[in-house]
Every structure is written in structure tokens, then in C-alpha cells.
């Protein structure tokens, strides 16, 4: 399968690979998987409690190139955004940016799910905006 240059770039030079301290109050962890292929993705964010801005994001993905590229891109995109802005990121944005073919859409879905799961985890830890958290679910 032919990959777009952007996918190949993220695959060869993934941004923000690594992990944050899961037990920290300011860190949200999202661990998600795609049953279709068995791939798993962990995405973590560190949120500034005052501003709710995501200051750091890390990921680790065991999966296909598109999943790695999607999660790498997702960490780039969430950084500098507030939590609620980050919730707005859609998998379709990722598909467009990376020119993913239809069979790889589920890989971008995984990245969107991971962002939401990480934010959800952070909200739960910090008991932030119950109403917002419920809406996000």
C-alpha cells in the first residue's frame, strides 16, 4: 500500500514518543485498542491545572504505520490546546491531514479515541466539569 509522505514522515520520525507519569494528578492517560487488528495505543497528556492547557503529550503505539502517524500527529495537535479545544479534534481531520485511504480510517479513529480517553482520565482524576465529561462520553 502506498503511504502519503506525511504518514511516512511521522512513521520515520515519530514526535513525542514516550510516557508521562501515570500517577501524577496533572496527567491523563488514554489506552485504547482496535479490535480489527489488535493494535494498541497509549496517549498521555499533562494539563496545566490553572489554564487547562495541554502542555505536554506523549504516545506509544503498537500498530500499523497509519496508527503511529495518527497518534504522532494527535500529540502535536493537542499540545498548546485547552482540554475542551482538544476534544474538538475529529478523526476525519486526521484522515485529511495524512491522506489516509479508506481501509486506514480505523487507525485515525483509534487516535481520536485515545485523545478522548486521555482527557476523560484527566477529568476523572481532577473531578473537572462533570457535565462536560458526561457530554464527552
Amino acid at each position, binding site marked *: 500500500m502506498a*503511504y502519503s509522505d506525511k504518514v511516512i514522515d511521522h*512513521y520515520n520520525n515519530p514526535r513525542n514518543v514516550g510516557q508521562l507519569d501515570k500517577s501524577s494528578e496533572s496527567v491523563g492517560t488514554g*489506552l*485504547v*485498542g*482496535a*479490535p*480489527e*487488528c*489488535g*493494535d*494498541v495505543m*497509549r496517549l498521555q497528556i499533562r494539563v496545566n491545572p490553572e489554564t487547562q492547557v495541554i502542555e505536554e503529550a506523549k504516545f*506509544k503505539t*503498537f500498530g*500499523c*504505520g497509519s496508527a503511529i502517524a495518527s497518534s504522532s500527529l494527535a500529540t502535536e495537535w493537542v499540545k498548546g490546546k485547552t482540554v475542551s479545544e482538544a476534544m474538538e479534534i475529529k478523526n*476525519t481531520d486526521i*484522515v485529511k491531514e495524512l491522506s489516509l485511504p*479508506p*481501509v*486506514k*480510517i*480505523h487507525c485515525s*479513529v483509534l487516535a*481520536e*479515541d485515545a485523545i*478522548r480517553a486521555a482527557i476523560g482520565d484527566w477529568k476523572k482524576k481532577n473531578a473537572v466539569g462533570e457535565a462536560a465529561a458526561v457530554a464527552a*462520553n
Partner: protein
Amino acid sequence: MQSHVQNSTASDGEQTYFDMFSLPRKLTIDTAALERGFYKLSRQLHPDLYARKSAAEQAWSLRQSSLLNDAYRTLKDPVARTAYLLKLEGMRMEDENTENRDPRAKQNRVPADLLEEVFELNMQLEEMRANLKMGEDDPALRGDLERAQVQFKAMLTSLDEDLRRAWAAWDAAMDASDDAAKNEQKDAMVAMLDRRSYLRNLLREVDGVLTWQGAVGEKANI
């Protein structure tokens, strides 16, 4: 007359794989009847019978044959049969590749504890691969992986037992036209098939690493 068997979805008026073989929508099927139906329908669609027909009819018979083969292969394999039935029932298995998906459709389908295990094991696999590539072996790590292999195999075996019980429960619910019980089994089976595909993928990876002979072992589905 050409349109009635073309699609495998459950929308109204379309023939399902089960219909093609006049089988009820159950998960324990009469495999002898399936075989008989397959051979009978195959004969009816035999290219020789269409040799002197129009191009359009020949094309039609060809399409029908390939559909028949798909139907037969799907129903013959109990797991594929289950996935297909769940799809017919609107559970949309293995079909996340759609732009307009419902974002909630997949949530929590796979239990978090399994995900943790899968993730941890992948970490170990990665380490093991790195070692192997350097021409080293780490007996402790290898031992961990071997234990994981045994454990995941056992999980798969017991999952398949659960699955068999779910088939029986589904069939009973069908007989009783008990929608509540049917829905319960549907949800249970979706979760089981998801779990199953994780376990199978993982086992394939573990088997690959443990039998690594050089050169291979890297995950190939970039």
C-alpha cells in the same frame, strides 16, 4: 431478478447468506445441509450451463458463484458465521472504516484490563525483538513471554468455550423469539469476538518472537 442476492447486508428484501441455504439465523447450523446446498447451488451456476447464454447472463452467474462461495466459507467457519450474524443484526463488526461512524459505537468494547495486558506484553515483545536483533537472548524475558504465551492460549481456549455457550443461548433465544435474551447474547458475543481477535493477534506476535530465526519478526503491516 439479478438483484436479490447481490448484497450481504440485512436491509429489507435482500437475501442473507442464511437465506441462500434456507438455514435459520442460528449459530449452530446443520453443516450437512450447508454442504448439500452449496453443491446443489454450485451445480446450478456451473459455467457450462451458461456457455451459450448472453454475456450479461454469464456475468450474472459468475457474480452469483462468487457470492455463493463467500456465503459458504462464511457460514462454514463458526467464528466467521458469528461475526456475520452480528453484522446482520446491526452490530457492525469489523467495520470502523467509515467516516460517519458513531463515536460511541466502540466505547468500552474491550475491557481495560485486557488492554493493559496487551500493552505490557507488546512492550516486552519490543524489548525481546531489540535483543534478538543484537544477537542476544534474555532468558528471563523469554521465560516471561513463554508464560504469557501459555496464559493467552488458555484464555483463548476458555473464551471459545464461552463462545460455544453463547451460540447455544442465542439459538434458544431465537427459538423462543426472546428479544431481550437475543440482545444480551449479541452484546456478549461482540465483546467475545473483540477479545478473541486481540488474543489471536497477540499470540501470533508472541509465537513469531519466540520462534525468531533472524530477519523476520518485525511487524509487517505498516
